[in-house]
């Protein structure tokens, strides 16, 4: 410390504002009974394709919707709208990640009570989204078989911030000479005990297990509403 100066204690989390908004969102989601899943990955690992399949296949059973973040263009929202689910694009401009306030703004005018699942597709980026809580219940990190098995070691923070890892494009595994065991070892070393799924949105392989995970996690975190939904399903 230089002479003539004094120290003022502050002790404040830099992301306090984001965390406060995220906490508010989490409470709103909980109250409305909507289970929120966010997806992070590098660009081109298949988030939008997987999400399109997810929305389409969950829809007969559940009321689903999606928010999708991108730096520019509304192409992804247009693609996802084919699923007939409500979809809104969040265009971040030059910002490389979504923040809780953007999610909050995007949800304006939406009645969350009418939803069972809300998906949030983050901007394709394996670095920055890790620092920002969006109020989600579950964060998926996607990694495609063409990316190299050591990707988790290169981006440990994002894998560590996620709840579930999803290996995508499994239909290309043989062509890419993908070593699944090596990929799993990499993931486990940065996030021991993480749930890891392997899927192909194209062939449908592994998708049943993937959907089962959503059902199970939703039922565990929203027991009252999940029971209601299944009762409606049985009656219907």
């Amino acid at each position, binding site marked *: 410390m230089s002479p003539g100066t004094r120290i*003022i204690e502050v002790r404040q989390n*830099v992301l*306090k504002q984001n965390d406060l908004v995220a906490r508010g969102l989490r409470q709103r989601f909980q109250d409305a009974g909507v289970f929120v899943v966010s997806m992070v990955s590098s660009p081109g690992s298949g988030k939008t394709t997987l999400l399109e399949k997810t929305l389409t296949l969950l829809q007969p059973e559940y009321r689903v919707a999606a928010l999708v973040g991108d730096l520019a263009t509304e192409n992804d929202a247009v693609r996802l709208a084919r699923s007939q689910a409500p979809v809104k694009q969040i265009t971040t401009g030059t910002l490389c990640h979504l923040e809780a306030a953007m999610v909050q703004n995007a949800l304006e005018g939406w009645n969350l009570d009418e939803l069972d699942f809300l998906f949030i597709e983050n901007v394709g980026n394996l670095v920055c989204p890790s620092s920002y809580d969006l109020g989600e219940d579950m964060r998926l990190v996607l990694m495609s078989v063409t990316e190299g098995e050591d990707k988790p070691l290169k981006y440990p923070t994002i894998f560590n911030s996620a709840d579930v890892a999803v290996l995508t494009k499994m239909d290309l595994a043989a062509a890419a000479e993908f070593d699944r065991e090596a990929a799993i070892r990499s993931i486990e070393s940065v996030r021991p005990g993480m749930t890891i799924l392997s899927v192909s949105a194209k062939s449908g392989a592994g998708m049943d297990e993937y959907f089962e995970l959503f059902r199970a996690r939703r039922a565990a975190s929203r027991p009252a509403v999940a029971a209601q939904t299944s009762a409606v399903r049985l009656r219907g």
Partner: protein
Amino acid sequence: MHELSIAMNIVEMAEEESQRRGGLHITAVHLRLGLLAGVVKDALLSSYEVACEDTSLKGSQLVVEEVPGVVYCPACDARRPVRSSEWFCCSECGAIASEIVQGKELEVVSLEVEE
């Protein structure tokens, strides 16, 4: 590259604190930065300079204290340092570490102000 938004948050927080106390001349901001916070120190330092432009913090310094990662090992029932962010297991016994107890800090600790 979200260091610029982080740097802008830091500057905003410092300015708010200054206004709350009736206006201070801040010469330095002290920050604790965890190994696992997902923020690159060098990028943050250069972003900080940019973020300070046209604010009352122009010319101030960002002093970063790096905080190592620590996990809790249930097998040893002890806190263990993380050797690198690529290896989250216990550094002693290799067991799966259940919890990160330190290393995610991204916190403004204090401001240095002129008397």
